[in-house]
């Protein structure tokens, strides 16, 4: 849970930051199949942006176009001011990429694998010799630096992948499904590591379909479906738009039950008040109404025993949004 507090403590990246990734009307077709459909995406410097959506929604294709690994059918991309189609080397020298299924040369050691990457990046030998052990050390793989990667677990490979990113010292890191296949503890550590990278000023774009994990680290998210980005914004914004808030405040109070209920209903931003037990009320509200609810209960002559808030979850937003979207399309 410390991750949640960490993310809520850091202020969400504001939209004033310089845009480091910008796509406009970006489209990719494979024959008749449209993988990415008129995507307009902007990611600002220093923020963590999450591309969310089911498998096959076009997230990986988008990432490949950002890196210049596949050519867009139409539309434009700018990454750090460069066009990945025409200047892929400039882009790839500044952007680190962690693919979803990460592989290494099994017969080589961790150090040798990174040494190859360092040479491909044109790092001077002396510099690489310093950076490689430092990066591997930092990812907690110092003891196995000279072991062949064949002996590594999935989590260790993932960390070696991040060590490779650190080696490049990129301005932007793009991760495709970074927590997929990690056990809960490893996933937790990984999310913590993402926040550390963010602290260092690195912009991070990650794709995932594991919404609850992404919610913990992303400043802004974009929901993908069938090649389109349906909505984007901070989790709170999305909750506001999709769930009309999505906060659930549980109030335990005794006293004049009807009066309390009326007082709670009269609060601004309250959508619904349910009485789940004789002395328990659940308020559905647009924002965190705890303080208002507390004074309302007291003013209505009640005695307050408990107050609890449940922030909106991305899972909920996602399922509600797509239910509405499909209903809307049906009607």
């Amino acid at each position, binding site marked *: 849970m410390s991750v949640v507090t960490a993310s809520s403590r850091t202020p969400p990246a504001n939209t004033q930051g310089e845009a480091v990734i910008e796509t406009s009307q970006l489209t990719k077709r494979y024959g008749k199949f449209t993988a990415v459909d008129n995507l307009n995406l902007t990611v600002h410097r220093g923020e963590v942006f999450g591309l969310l959506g089911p498998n096959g929604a076009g997230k990986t294709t988008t990432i490949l176009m950002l890196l210049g690994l596949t050519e867009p059918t139409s*539309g434009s991309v700018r990454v750090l001011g460069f066009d990945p*189609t025409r200047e892929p*080397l400039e882009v790839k020298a500044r*952007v680190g*990429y962690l693919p979803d299924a990460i592989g290494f040369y099994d017969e080589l050691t961790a150090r040798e694998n990174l040494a190859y990457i360092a040479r491909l*990046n044109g790092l001077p030998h002396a510099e690489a010799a310093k950076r490689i052990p430092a990066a591997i050390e930092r990812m907690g793989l110092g003891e196995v630096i000279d072991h062949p990667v064949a002996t590594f677990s999935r989590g260790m490979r993932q960390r070696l992948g991040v060590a490779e990113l650190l080696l490049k010292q990129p301005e932007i890191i793009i991760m495709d499904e970074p927590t997929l296949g990690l056990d809960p503890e490893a996933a937790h550590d990984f999310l913590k590591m993402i926040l550390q990278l963010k602290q260092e000023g690195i912009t991070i774009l990650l794709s995932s379909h594991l919404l609850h994990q992404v919610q913990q680290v992303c400043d802004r998210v974009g929901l993908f479906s069938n090649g389109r980005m349906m909505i984007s914004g901070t989790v709170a914004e999305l909750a506001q738009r999709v769930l009309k808030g999505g906060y659930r405040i549980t109030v335990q109070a005794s006293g004049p039950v009807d009066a309390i209920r009326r007082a709670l209903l009269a609060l601004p931003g309250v959508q619904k008040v349910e009485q789940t037990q004789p002395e328990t009320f659940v308020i559905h509200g647009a924002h965190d109404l705890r303080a208002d609810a507390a004074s309302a209960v007291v003013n209505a002559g009640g005695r307050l025993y408990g107050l609890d808030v449940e922030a909106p979850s991305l899972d909920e937003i996602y399922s509600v949004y797509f239910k509405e979207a499909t209903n809307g399309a049906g009607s």
Partner: protein
Amino acid sequence: MAQAVKVQSTAAQPASQARRRKGSPWTGLWAVVAKEMADHLSSVRMQILEVLILLTAVGTVYAVMQGVRQTVGQDPFIFLRLFTTAREPLPAFVGFLSFLVPLIAISMAFDAVNGEFNRRTMSRVLAQPIYRDALLMGKFLAGFFTLALVLTAIWLLVMGMGLLGLGLPPSGEEVARSLIFLVATIFYGGIWLALGLVFSVIFRQPATAALGALAVWLFFTIFWSMLASLLARVISPVTYGTAQELLRQIEVEQALSRISPNTLYVEATLGILNPAIRSFGILLPSQLEGAIIGAPLPLSQSLMLMWPQLTGLIAATILLFALAYVLFQRQEIRA
């Protein structure tokens, strides 16, 4: 919908005009070459084949030396005999090479590209600041250099054994002829290397790629000569049994058989290693007028004789590599 498609195509046009890549396509080439060469030289697969080729070299050369000791004084091209003489039950060393070199080349290339996909290293490597060109070219050059290294070492070994066993140094012409033979052998390997690369781009399964490449090799080594003679009979039938007709048929058959890199290689090696050879086809008596049968040709004439074969080997290598290159450039990176 139709309108949308139209808008699409007009929007794509300026994009294609502006599609000029920046940066050198060879960035990172030598890093790839160094890594791949290290892989080849340390791989068990290569070591087995190296031992095999070493044994055949030692075996055949030793057998030849047992036979030619007596004639050392008379034969001016005794060193070339080390490569070409067959002593029962062993075939000549060039025979072994025409068999083993394709095997080595294919074994280095058949999993070059699909192996990267299967190990899931492709997207990681291509996310580094290099073009695909450097990766494929690097893989080809690494195989080519490895081949050159191994074959040169074998060449030196044979020459060294000759020096020790025969007790006299090779003449300048012998060194020159055997060096040209070495170049022809390396490019003969280059063809199979490039072919292996093509198959490794086409097939995702390394086993399929290996079998495909080996099938092509077998086809050309064993079946193509039979097919060539059958086809020649169809294309240029002998109806009246005239000399012209017979000659034409033989010429057609020869032209067809030269599609096979094996034929090119065998002819090239014969032409350069056997100075007495004047033609690969039939010699008419009129062409032999004034010639002394069995007299050696000078180096320049032998070179001229095998020049088409040598350039054919080089051209086939380049063409096959170009094919692999085009296929690889068009491939989608996501597996």
